[in-house]
């Protein structure tokens, strides 16, 4: 008699860079669509939340997880994995959606988002969720933790592992982000890839009104970073930017910054144009229309 188990095989998810570009774009677009569907499942469970940001960053996460990262979905502690650090803790529903799409979390668990006893809290923490590398949320921590991880990996001879850090444009307000920016360049952390989600909105309003942060590319370049700025909702631009960063990546070299301009609520037109997007309320009868609009946008892009 053989014992049947559901234990997942320790397969390695490899970057897709060997595939034809058109195929990679299609894969990222498909993954982004699935991530957005997952986000709506989580959002509906609570009736409100950081849905706009999660929809906006879905293409970035799809590129990272479906196209760029090397990891084992069944073993999130695998020493040779690339690391993805989510600094902006309230993007939790976005990373859970991406981890479900990547095969790390079961889809069925998404409905427990922010519920009592769930492994998927409102703000992402490494102590709760497999595949979440840091406890973000107190903003301005992720890039510095990434500095430490890149230093630690290099110190132990891990030359190929990339450390990717996603943070929000609001975190550009925090002095600690700029301490980390200086430090990464000083230590020549060439395997560190920062990704800033420029959605233009923070808790108190538009970023340009709260604390202006442009010109952003000039600042990172002046700090010594290899800097690119892309449309963060365009899979082709994202793939090219990550490929360019990875092509230059090395244990010792310039750190990389990919500035991603994104649109809050992307993919669901009624949410893209909604006011008060930071913590969005969505009525119970809107979730199905949101899904219909999302699928229509996705289908239209495919044509």
């Amino acid at each position, binding site marked *: 008699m053989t014992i049947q188990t559901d234990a997942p095989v320790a397969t390695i998810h490899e970057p897709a860079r060997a595939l034809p570009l058109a195929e990679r774009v299609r894969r990222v677009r498909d993954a982004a669509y699935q991530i957005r569907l997952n986000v709506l499942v989580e959002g509906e469970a609570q009736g409100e939340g950081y849905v706009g940001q999660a929809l906006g960053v879905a293409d970035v996460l799809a590129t990272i997880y479906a196209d760029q990262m090397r990891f084992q979905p069944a073993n999130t502690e695998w*020493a040779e994995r690339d690391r993805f650090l989510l600094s902006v803790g309230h993007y939790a529903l976005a990373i859970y959606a991406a981890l479900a799409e990547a095969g790390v979390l079961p889809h069925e668990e998404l409905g427990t988002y922010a519920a009592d006893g769930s492994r998927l809290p409102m703000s992402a*923490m*490494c*102590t709760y969720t497999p595949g979440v*590398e*840091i*406890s973000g*949320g*107190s903003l*301005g*921590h992720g*890039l*510095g*933790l*990434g*500095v*430490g*991880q*890149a*230093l*630690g*990996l290099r*110190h*132990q001879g*891990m030359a190929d592992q990339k450390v990717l850090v996603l943070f929000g444009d609001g975190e550009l307000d925090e*002095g*600690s982000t700029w*301490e*980390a920016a*200086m*430090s990464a360049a*000083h*230590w020549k952390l060439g395997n560190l890839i920062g990704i800033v989600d420029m959605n233009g909105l923070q808790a108190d309003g538009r970023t340009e009104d709260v604390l202006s942060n442009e010109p952003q590319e000039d600042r990172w370049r002046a700090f010594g970073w290899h800097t690119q700025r892309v449309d963060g909702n365009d899979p082709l631009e994202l793939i090219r930017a990550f490929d360019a960063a990875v092509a230059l990546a090395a244990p010792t070299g310039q750190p990389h910054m990919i500035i991603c301009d994104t649109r809050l609520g992307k993919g669901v037109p009624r949410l893209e144009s909604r006011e008060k997007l930071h913590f969005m309320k969505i009525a119970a009868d809107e979730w199905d229309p949101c899904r219909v609009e999302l699928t229509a946008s996705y289908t239209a892009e495919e044509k």
Partner: protein
Amino acid sequence: MTTTATKSAQPLRSAAMIASIADAGVRTTSAPFGHALNALAAVDPRIVGLTADLSKYTDMHIFAAEYPDRFFEMGMAEQVMMMAAAGMAQTGLVPFASTYSVFATRRAYDFICLDMAEPKLNVNLVSALPGLTTGYGPSHQATEDIAILRGMPDLTIVDPCDAVDIEQAVPQLAACEGPTYTRLLRGAVPRILDDYDYTFELGKAKVVRPGQDVVFVASGLMTMRGLLAAEELAKRGVDVCVVHAPTIKPFDADTVVEQIDTDRMAFTLENHTIVGGLFESVAGALVKRGVGRQVRAIGLPDEFLDAGALPTLHDRYGLSTQAVVNRVLAELVGR
């Protein structure tokens, strides 16, 4: 490592602002932390050292000289030093990170709390100039560092007395799960505990000196002052028990309460404001057990302290050996 006798008199010029805390006649050991870290690093390749532009003032330069490839100068940037130490710990290293106590606690609290304590990472903070160990004034006097940190879950807090404590603590800090904060004594550090039957044990308070009339519960350099005061008081017929409680958190309440719950007059001695430090740790332990004993607090007042020569300030604020002796005698007379 060198052990020398302290000069008997210090001129009270500007150098006296950071005068040695060793009383006249007390032996000292040079940079015990740096040497202990080197000894540990020799047998544990996971050990790395970081500092925020204060290696020479935290004895981390001893490690940096011996292990330049394992030393990380993070610049005058305490926040990224804490984040980087936490990130390094996540990759399997065991970092020791040094700065001054004021900067670790006042500037970088959030990064200790959320990047180290919440994920229970093995990062060991060593913070020089704890309490009143400099005459530079409030900018450098970490009179409330324990009070700031004591509410942080999963953080171990150690207030060593001398070189013996520091040397024995370093490997235990590295072996301890979760982050630690140690109030570092640096430079020419007093060496007194090996005159007694004592070993440092993380999490334990120890009766260093037995005594019939008075009991001191002390931590940090005040254990040294307590032991020296006990010798003076013995000459006057007062027999003092000294309990050394170097681990402030988790606090060895059982040992301390057992020693206080007697007919002896009880004191706490701490190089810290009487708000939120050893005194209140003891008070909480007593109340929780329903033990109604009076405890007299020897510690720093709840105020910003003066600048000046350190010996002058220790006399002024009651931390010097003579001030402890005088206080005890006054309390005994008033009883």
